[in-house]
């Protein structure tokens, strides 16, 4: 009988790499390639419609619109917001990551989760909560007014920057944390033996090595800030997204189009920066992850705890507190008007999200399979366009499809299929990503084995590949489902008349000022976001 288990697992990644470059097992057929190309083209089509619409604008009109004071102020507003939010996120995220990874902070585990958690609050829900807390008729204003304290207005640049920072800085925190975890602390010990203090060592050794992680997080923050629609809209701050939405609503479509192209341009600049600097595999060769304490905080413990507590109160305490308050205080001031909440809104959300998840997953499979199984340039060419959803803010996508619907397919305009198509374009990157990595995780030799055992490529896919990538498919579908539930701008622009979801309901309530009505749906969305975060984290672990 065979004795000790010779572990072949260790060799696998290398072997797979070798095989990838040399063999053609399970090489997808031309039919798969065609299918993948079709999906890719469909996903890319909104860009074409946008460009077509832009081409209708006369040159002189275009120039006039682009150099108008309004456009320039929108541009400066957006860039300023991105700059401030990104900087603030780095300033906040990096120290928090260091505190939770490298120090002897009490309750590190708890703080790590608490500090990352704001990511689960959709920023428009957060903005909404902040407005109702600090706004003119808000809770705190109500409490403080009798005392003669006047809080500065929450609307405008300050409020938008504060809210966005509060809910997106965790991107920087998480990526920095990941870099720090993969940092080999033996290097710090080496520095110490070379008579360098922690502060100097951090600057000279740690910082350069975690820089790619910090940058990656900062770029995520920048992209999010640029594409976020809810926060600037609620804060009445004119950024691209808000301006586009308003222009569209006043039927100034040419202007909306040009603003969209400008927004895409700025996004492209950020993406180009990202690919230049890159998230970079920052894990180096020191593969052991370490949460060993390398710094003892000493008397700094108290200020550190105060900082953490303040962050958690502002980013979690305020929104959750406000939502809770609404839930219990359903007085007439909060729940007036005819906007009663109905559970069917929740069902609508779930149904449309489920349909989006299903279609997106089906569309992602050929793309992911083709690009995961071929080393050709064509595979790359087909896969890349499916990431357009990452770069295309929801409001721009919505706009492009509004053009398409009104001009080329009136029958589709404001129907569920078009809305679902928007979700597919927006979220297919998630499905392609998770499916592709599970396809790559399937040893090609397995397909070869099935073939030599008498299976056709199609049957080999069904009997071997499909069961093995099923978990990836499900995870991708779950992510799409959850993010679709939260999507705001495209939903607002493309919802069929009379079709109300959780998100559009919250939006209407918010616009009408009946905050109390929003408590339940907002809490549901927060819960859904928490689940999606869990899915993402689990996907990263495996």
């Amino acid at each position, binding site marked *: *009988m*065979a*004795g*000790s*288990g*010779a*572990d*072949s697992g260790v*060799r*696998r990644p290398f*072997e797979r790499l070798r095989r990838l470059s040399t*063999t*053609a*097992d399970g090489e997808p057929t031309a039919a798969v390639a065609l299918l993948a190309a079709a999906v890719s083209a469909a996903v890319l089509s909104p860009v074409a419609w946008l460009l077509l619409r832009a081409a209708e604008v006369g040159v002189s009109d275009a120039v006039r619109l682009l150099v108008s004071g309004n456009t320039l102020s929108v541009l400066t507003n957006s860039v300023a917001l991105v700059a401030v939010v990104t900087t603030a996120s780095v300033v906040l995220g990096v120290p928090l990551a260091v505190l939770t990874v490298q120090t002897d902070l009490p309750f590190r585990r708890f703080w790590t989760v608490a500090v990352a958690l704001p990511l689960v609050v959709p920023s428009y829900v957060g903005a909404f909560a902040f407005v109702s807390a600090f706004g003119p008729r808000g809770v705190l204003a109500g409490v403080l007014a009798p005392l003669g304290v006047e809080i500065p207005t929450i609307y405008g640049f300050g409020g938008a920057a504060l809210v966005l920072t509060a809910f997106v800085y965790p991107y920087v925190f998480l990526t920095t944390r990941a870099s720090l975890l993969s940092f080999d602390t033996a290097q710090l010990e080496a520095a110490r033996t070379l008579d360098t203090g922690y502060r100097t060592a951090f600057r000279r050794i740690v910082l350069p090595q975690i820089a790619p992680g910090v940058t990656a997080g900062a770029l995520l923050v920048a992209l999010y800030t640029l594409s976020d629609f809810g926060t600037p809209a609620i804060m009445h701050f004119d950024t691209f997204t808000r301006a586009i939405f308003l222009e569209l609503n006043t039927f100034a479509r040419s202007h909306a189009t040009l603003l969209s192209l400008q927004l895409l341009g700025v996004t492209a600049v950020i993406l180009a920066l990202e690919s230049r600097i890159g998230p970079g595999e920052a894990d180096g060769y020191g593969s052991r992850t370490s949460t060993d304490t390398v710094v003892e905080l000493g008397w700094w413990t108290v200020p550190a705890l105060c900082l953490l507590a303040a962050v958690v109160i502002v980013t979690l305490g305020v929104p959750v507190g406000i939502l809770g308050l609404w839930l219990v205080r359903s007085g007439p001031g909060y729940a007036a008007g005819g906007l009663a909440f109905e559970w069917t809104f929740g069902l609508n959300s779930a149904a449309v999200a489920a349909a989006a998840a299903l279609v997106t997953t089906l569309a992602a499979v050929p793309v992911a399979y083709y690009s995961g199984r071929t080393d050709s340039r064509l595979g790359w060419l087909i896969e890349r366009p499916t990431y357009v959803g990452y770069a295309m803010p929801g409001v721009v996508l919505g706009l492009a499809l509004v053009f398409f619907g009104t001009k080329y397919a009136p029958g589709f305009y404001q129907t569920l299929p078009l809305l679902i198509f928007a979700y597919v374009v927006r979220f297919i990157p998630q499905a392609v990503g998770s499916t592709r990595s599970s396809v790559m995780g399937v*040893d090609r*030799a*397995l397909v*070869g*084995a*099935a*073939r*030599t*055992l*008498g*299976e*056709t490529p199609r049957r*080999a896919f069904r*009997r*071997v590949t499909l*069961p*093995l990538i099923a978990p990836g498919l499900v995870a991708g579908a779950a992510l799409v489902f959850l993010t679709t539930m939260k999507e705001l701008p495209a939903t607002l622009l493309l919802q069929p008349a009379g079709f109300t979801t959780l998100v559009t309901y919250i939006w209407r309530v918010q616009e009408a000022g009946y905050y109390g009505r929003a408590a339940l749906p907002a809490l549901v969305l927060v819960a859904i976001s928490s689940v999606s975060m869990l899915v993402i984290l689990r996907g990263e672990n495996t």
Partner: protein
Amino acid sequence: MTDDTTATTRESTDGGRQTVDPRPVGDDRTVGGDRTTRRDRYADAPPVLELADVRREYGAETAVESVDLTVREGELLTLLGPSGCGKTTTLRLIAGLDRPTGGTVRVAGDTVAAGAAEHATFVPPEDRDVGMVFQEFALFPHLTVGENVAFGIDDWPDADREARVEELLALVGLGDYGDRTPEDLSGGQRQRVALARSLAPEPDVLLLDEPFSNLDVRLRTRMREEVRRILKAAGVTAVSVTHDQEEALSISDRVAVVSDGRIEQVGRPETVFEHPESRFVAEFIGQASFLSGTLSDGRVDTGLGTLHVDTLQGLTDEYDGAAVDVLVRPDDLRATPVEAGGAAGSPDASEVSGVGVAGDGTVVGREYTGPSFVYEVELDSGDLVRCEHNHASEFDLDRRVRVDLTADHTLAWYPTE
């Protein structure tokens, strides 16, 4: 082992149809034993696998330049060569996992791949009766051991299929493992399952891609014998691929040495080892050293003295004046220490019959492997040779030694390059 021997014996006596029974009777007894019977057994068997001028290019790169090969029914042939020599590609061309860019592949008389471009014949892997054991075994992780073995025969009637799975698991010694998952198995067990799975559909040819490379060293030796036993019990025609010469020599009926996409030499293991037809084969198998010399008047003068032309295989006086390199292996030579100052006698004076030829030199290197020492000796002629000694013979570096040629066989030689 006894069980299997009786099993195969019974089968061949029961039927009495020697022509259709592919199973060599009790061949497993010859493991490491009588090679002659092995050769005789397959020389007249019908060819099952034929490769003619098979080529494979990837763009400008040639992986397989031109391979001609015939494998006979029931035999186990090993493609042996360094990594990157094209042996695995050859295997994949046979399996149909890759398309040749030229040449013909025939399995059991049917052409499964021929030519290139528009007139090409290409039978996909699922329609060839060729089984394959993959390097990392490629067991389906989502299926049990039994389901893995049954994978290729799922179109059989239930009862037959179950019987076949049971039979094969018993053959590989994993009778009780049908419900386990591949994850639960050790490396050796996984290999047995992979074997059973590929044997289940009764392939005409079974291919094994570096079958032992994923096993640890101790297990490897045991599994070699075990795999040979299973293949012989199943009576399958097999082609394996390895870069490990010891593995190739020990398990194969015949060895084909592959270099740069060509087969350099095919033959029984001992033929290939003792009479390598090319310098490459000589250097690849065994720790070859070469004695340089020039043939004149029926003798070659070397650093080990004069060798008579009769002691050199196939060398005749026709080659008079040719510069040759004579192959000597560590076990052909023996070093004896020479006391400082005392010369060990002039090599010119020694006999010319082959045995007894000797020369002086200096120990310049030594490698200790546990059971033995291999000394590297620089002969006074400038040639470097290796001598193998048991672990008790310990010489210091720089020691003067006399090296005796102790080989009792003819020596191979190659024209000097």
